[in-house]
């Protein structure tokens, strides 16, 4: 990765120069700085959620319940789920990398509504902090799903506070989604047609669409829980003829599409990484775009597969099962296209590329086990077991977190203007891959053998696999902590990166690193399709 010495000159004026008082950060409307604000907040919440996970894995080393009481255990997995889903995964790639990159990728000076963007961060942080504080007020033990009637009529824990916090954070999602959608519609630079958008921008578009269509339904659902606990207005109360399954329908109408909020941005990042480090134009650009939008669309038609055993009608189950199988099609198209992009490429095994490779492997396993779960007969057997836990962690951690870290490494030089340690970053990528598989692969077996999720004790037969899983979690933790160390180090000591250290295409690489306040000295004009890497031949698909 040698860079021309001319490019290594540090830009005199950039978005980080000047203005390091607190108010310059907390009241900034620069999308790049707001990206940093999100970066700091979600990292904080990630480690809080991680501590909860660590306690869970420590408890599960032995079959008996010795470290945590049953109640504390319930609170730990609930906090882990709530924090990781709502305060880390959903905002992770869209709100940090998306915030930083979307305007630059389309050649704009900022998002369409910069103040709204800042408001969205404040709303998010206040809501999320509020929920974390509920731990001190008696926690929540409902799991991240808040199922009624347990959440409304029985539990003594602070469901009201937690639901309110998540409700508030939902507004942040909605505002961010609207902001990205409007920006992508109205603010593309001259020549940046829809079919020239980078796939990361397309993925963010699809994600935003899901955010604005699904989040309001979650909001009303949480609001109904809150009014039931606060005013005694029971909408789901079985004693009045209310239907708890209706709650599950409403909840999953949001939360299944939300699963795609937690994977589509990762797919977008990986498309950028693979093309750059294979020095190849992406294989089948149009089919990639159609697949992204198809996943977003199908995502709205499959929520019932969470309720195969909850008492919904069998015919509904059949339809939901069918649609769930259908989601596999666009996902498979994307996976094959990434692989085909590698074909006859000049592959560079940098740290971001290692993360991208991890993503493809882990996402494939996560996706295929998803098909197993979509088959109703098998789902009855493995429902609510560790098989399900392993499956969605392969998507959310193996997929999304891996892509997120890959993306952070890839765009780090752009965000900070500095390079990080090549060796340590590769070590971290490998630690993540090995630690992750060691943690979660045994859980597939555990689940298939019948170990249910959400229990703090288990029969002694399951101990070996559980110990493997807990050891893996330790390795995984190293994979998370290492980047924190060497990336922080690089902030101060890293070599200057220059405008385009990876030799990537894309408008964001055409401006200096770190970029100037309004991204471009002059708004660029776009005259070629995306991913015009010239390694192979002059032709580009799409």
């Amino acid at each position, binding site marked *: 990765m040698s860079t021309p010495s001319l490019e290594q000159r540090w830009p005199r004026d950039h978005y980080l120069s000047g203005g390091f008082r607190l108010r310059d950060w907390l009241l900034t409307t620069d999308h790049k700085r707001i990206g940093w604000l999100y970066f700091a907040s979600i990292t904080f919440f990630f480690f809080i959620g991680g501590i909860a996970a660590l306690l869970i894995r420590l408890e599960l080393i032995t079959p008996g319940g010795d470290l945590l009481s049953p109640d504390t255990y319930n609170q730990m997995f609930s906090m882990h789920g709530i924090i990781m889903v709502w305060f880390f995964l959903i905002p992770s790639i869209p709100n940090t990398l998306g915030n930083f990159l979307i305007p630059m990728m389309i050649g704009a000076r900022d998002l369409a509504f910069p103040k709204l963007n800042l408001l969205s961060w404040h709303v998010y942080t206040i809501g999320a902090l509020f929920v974390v504080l509920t731990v001190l007020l008696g926690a929540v033990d409902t799991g991240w799903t808040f199922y009624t009637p347990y959440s409304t009529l029985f539990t003594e824990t602070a469901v009201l506070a937690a639901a309110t916090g998540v409700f508030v954070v939902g507004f942040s999602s909605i505002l961010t989604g609207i902001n990205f959608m*409007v*920006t992508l*519609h109205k603010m593309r630079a001259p020549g940046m047609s829809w079919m020239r958008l980078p796939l990361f921008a397309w993925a963010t578009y699809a994600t935003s669409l899901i955010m604005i*269509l699904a989040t309001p339904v979650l909001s009303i659902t949480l609001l109904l829980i809150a009014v039931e606990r606060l005013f005694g207005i029971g909408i789901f109360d079985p004693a009045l*003829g209310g239907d708890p399954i209706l709650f599950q329908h409403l909840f999953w109408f949001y939360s299944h599409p939300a699963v795609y909020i937690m994977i589509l941005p990762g797919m977008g990042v990986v498309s950028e990484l693979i093309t750059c480090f294979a020095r190849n134009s992406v294989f089948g650009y149009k089919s990639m775009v159609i697949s992204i939008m198809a996943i977003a669309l199908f995502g709205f038609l499959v929520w019932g597969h969470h309720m195969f055993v909850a008492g919904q009608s069998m015919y509904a189950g059949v339809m939901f099962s069918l649609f769930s199988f259908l989601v596999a099609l666009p996902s498979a198209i994307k996976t094959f296209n990434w692989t085909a992009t590698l074909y006859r490429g000049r592959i560079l095994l940098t740290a971001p590329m290692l993360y991208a490779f991890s993503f493809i492997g882990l996402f494939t396993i996560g996706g295929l086990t998803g098909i197993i779960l979509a088959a109703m007969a098998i789902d009855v057997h493995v429902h609510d077991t560790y098989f399900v836990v392993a499956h969605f962690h392969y998507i959310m951690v193996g997929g999304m977190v891996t892509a997120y870290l890959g993306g952070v490494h890839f765009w780090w030089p752009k965000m900070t203007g500095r390079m990080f340690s090549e060796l340590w970053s590769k070590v971290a990528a490998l630690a993540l891959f090995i630690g992750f598989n060691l943690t979660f692969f045994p859980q597939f077996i555990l689940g298939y053998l019948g170990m249910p999720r959400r229990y703090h004790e288990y029969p002694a037969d399951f101990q070996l696999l559980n110990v493997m899983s807990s050891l893996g979690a330790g390795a995984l933790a190293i994979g998370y902590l290492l980047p924190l160390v060497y990336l922080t180090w690089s902030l101060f000591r890293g070599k200057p990166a220059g405008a385009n250290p990876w030799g990537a295409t894309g408008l964001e690489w055409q401006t200096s690193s770190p970029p100037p306040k309004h991204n471009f000295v002059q708004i660029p004009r776009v005259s070629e399709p995306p991913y015009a890497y010239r390694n192979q031949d002059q032709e580009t698909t799409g």
Partner: protein
Amino acid sequence: MPTATKTRKPLGDQGPVAEQFETMGQQRDANRLGMWMFLGTELLLFGGLFGAFVTYRVIHAEGFAEAAGHLDLTLGALNTALLLTSGLTMALTEQMSRAARPKATFWLLVATIAIGALFIVIKGHEWYKEYQEQLMPVLGLPFSYPGEQPEQAELFFNFYFVMTGLHALHMLVGLGVLGVIATVAWRWRNPPRIARQVQISGLYWAFVDVIWVIVFSLLYLSRV
């Protein structure tokens, strides 16, 4: 005080464009699209509630239809008429602000706010009546229902208070926004900007109207 002597420029692309935009046209389009999308999310917010209500309306058809008969149809219809009228005044406000007529804009805004406030007062009166008739199953208040299926009726009234309450909350937000715009229109400094603001908030007000029409049909009209 808006006076006829103030400037009456036709609506044009004037005033500073926000720094992230290239042209005023782009800025206007972006704002309008943003508002439409926001209203889309609002529709889905209410949509979840409407979907849940319709589900129960089918499951508990008789109980719900009977309970609906205990709502005051006259007041509900009156409120519907009022709100639709306020929609008219708001639409006229938009026309007047585009034609850069300060007085008409201001007074039409005031009329819209007044009608909206009257709606809230009538709604509050209705709630008070239901409270007196012990049809308010909120905060453990006594609920005594004379009909056949008191549980289903309680469920119905739960929905009634959530739906009308959420709608009233949106009305209050709308009234606040219109109040701010009315003061801006009173000063009449930047007419094109006022016209844009009136248009955007007019969209919101129309949305609140539409939601009420659905609430009214679901709760009041689908009775025995």
